[in-house]
């Protein structure tokens, strides 16, 4: 019965016989075009790694040499003298606030869309329309979304989201920018949640139904816990997108150097109705093409931004990896 591919090692000889490789399995005997292809694949991978490392190291070097801890806690000011133009506390707060608003809107909507698509998805034509809608939003450049948002939220009806200026709404505030920001995070959350839902084998849903549970309680008690890592991955990726976006901030957040709550109004709400800046708009403003022209500050801020985004991506990868190990059903 035992038809061994290689003869069993002789008793006494300690080293196993060398593994035989057929000549045509070795790249040296491949045709030239295959060898060129292989060399290109190697080169592409290595080049990409080098480029990524160069960017990271360059920004780290520039950033660390320019960053002063005091910059993280001082308000910026418009002084031309760089020693008195302050730090970027307000942009950091703006980034956090804007991300929080965008995610708070995008997560419930994104998860609901994904749940509907996977668990209901009928009629099929509507499901296709929803999928296309998500694709359209995912594909639209953020500056286009921002431009649309500016005209849309300038309607008088939306003056509660910013404030009324003359006849129309101002159309620029944390609330407005956060709402539009949620659109760029939405497709990532829908996608990640959807993937996670599709990973749940059907017999798990049936097991819950077979216990006499309704579809609603199956979704609530079984599917949502199962896809929580997927939601977290999508959220982390979406946060990265929001933090990194500039166009929406420049057009819809007013792009004021410091956070400017709306005059009067209820405390807290006036902050959401007011304008401000984020790290990306601060970098843009302080870059050599911007008005501030303080590249040192821009590098320091860019370093902080890069740290946040890299950390978020690492978190997303970690969550996605942990999922496979922990909640894997026999398929």
């Amino acid at each position: 019965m035992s038809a061994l591919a290689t003869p069993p090692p002789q008793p006494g000889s300690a080293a196993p016989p060398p593994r035989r490789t057929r000549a045509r399995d070795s790249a040296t005997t491949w045709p030239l075009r295959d060898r060129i292809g292989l060399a290109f694949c190697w080169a592409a991978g290595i080049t990409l790694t080098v480029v990524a490392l160069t960017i990271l190291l360059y920004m780290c070097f520039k950033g660390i040499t320019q960053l002063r801890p005091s910059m993280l806690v001082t308000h910026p000011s418009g002084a031309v003298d760089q020693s008195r133009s302050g730090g970027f506390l307000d942009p950091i707060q703006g980034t956090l606030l804007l991300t929080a608003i965008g995610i708070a809107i995008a997560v419930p909507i994104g998860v609901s869309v994904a749940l509907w698509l996977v668990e209901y998805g009928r009629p099929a034509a509507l499901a296709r329309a929803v999928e296309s809608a998500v694709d359209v939003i995912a594909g639209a450049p953020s500056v286009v979304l921002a431009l649309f948002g500016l005209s849309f939220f300038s309607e008088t009806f939306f003056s509660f989201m910013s404030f009324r200026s003359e006849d129309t709404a101002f159309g620029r505030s944390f609330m407005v920018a956060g709402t539009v920001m949620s659109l760029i995070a939405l497709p990532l959350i829908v996608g990640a949640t959807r993937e996670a839902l599709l990973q749940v084998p059907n017999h798990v849903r049936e097991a819950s139904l077979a216990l006499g549970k309704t579809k609603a309680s199956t979704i609530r008690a079984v599917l949502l816990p199962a896809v929580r890592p997927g939601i977290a991955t999508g959220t982390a990726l979406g946060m990265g997108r929001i933090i990194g976006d500039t166009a929406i901030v420049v057009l819809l957040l007013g792009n004021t150097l410091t956070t400017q709550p709306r005059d009067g109004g209820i405390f807290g709400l006036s902050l959401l109705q007011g304008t401000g800046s984020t790290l990306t708009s601060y970098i843009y403003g302080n870059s050599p093409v911007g008005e501030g022209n303080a590249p040192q500050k821009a590098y320091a801020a860019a370093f902080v931004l890069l740290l946040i985004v890299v950390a978020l991506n690492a978190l997303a990868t970690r969550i996605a990896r942990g999922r496979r190990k922990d909640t894997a059903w026999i398929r």
Partner: protein
Amino acid sequence: MPPPPIRKISLDAPPTVVHVPPIPLNGNGNGNGHGAPAGGLHTPGPPSSDAPVIERMRCNAVTIAYGPKVAVNKVDLPISQGEVLAMIGPSGCGKTTLLRSLNRLTELTPSASRGGVISLDGQDIDLLEVTALRKRVSMVFQQPNPFPMSVFDNVAYSLREGGSKRPRKKELMEPVERALTRAGLWHEVRDNLDHPALRLSGGQQQRLCIARSLAAQPEVLLMDEPCSALDPISTGKIEELILELREQIAVVIVTHNLQQAQRVADRVAFMYLGELVEYASGEQIFNAPQAQRTRDYVGGAFG
């Protein structure tokens, strides 16, 4: 030595259908399903049980089709408490479909349609509330599928209304312990009730799924190849469990494994191409089958 003769079977020949012998309601006449051995070869079946045999479910001319394709064709089958019914047959013969129709899981497949009547305690199951029916007729699946929550919550899930977290842990400890004990899992998990259920081994996961079904105190337990993904030791434990369970509830098990059917089944239904070919005691199916097709299948001529 000449090679053994090749047995040829013609798969197109019309199947011999042996009609289901009428079983008296409340099962007084037929004992526990063990008649005298049919003579000749005798393979031991499961140990006989003293529990009275009571008919709980009955299929009357059940036909199930997926679109135009008929998967189950006019099957009549009684399902009784006090004995284990095994459904055997080659892949694609409709046994899993029939099993799933017993608690109306086939309704989840949009293309599936069903004819005939399935009754539970004389009541048409189509007239029962589907969630109520599934609480009474529970199912264990081929792959272990604990929910992504703790061991305790998995069992408590079927006791709580909807997907809520109430009642709280203390009130549910007793029924959860009872269910886990019945499934033979209590001693292995009593210290780890808060651990995620998906960290258990495959055999433990499957027994947890059985415990989860038992916690709802079902009257009929459907098992769809519950051991096919498991090692022999876990399989042995689950088979023992099945024999214990038959005293209190009706157990239907679908299996590909003829030896398993022989070990646990008091009654065996052999299905082929959607037809119920033969329904008899395990003794008879394995030692003195009436239909040619059954003889060929249990003899290993095809499968």
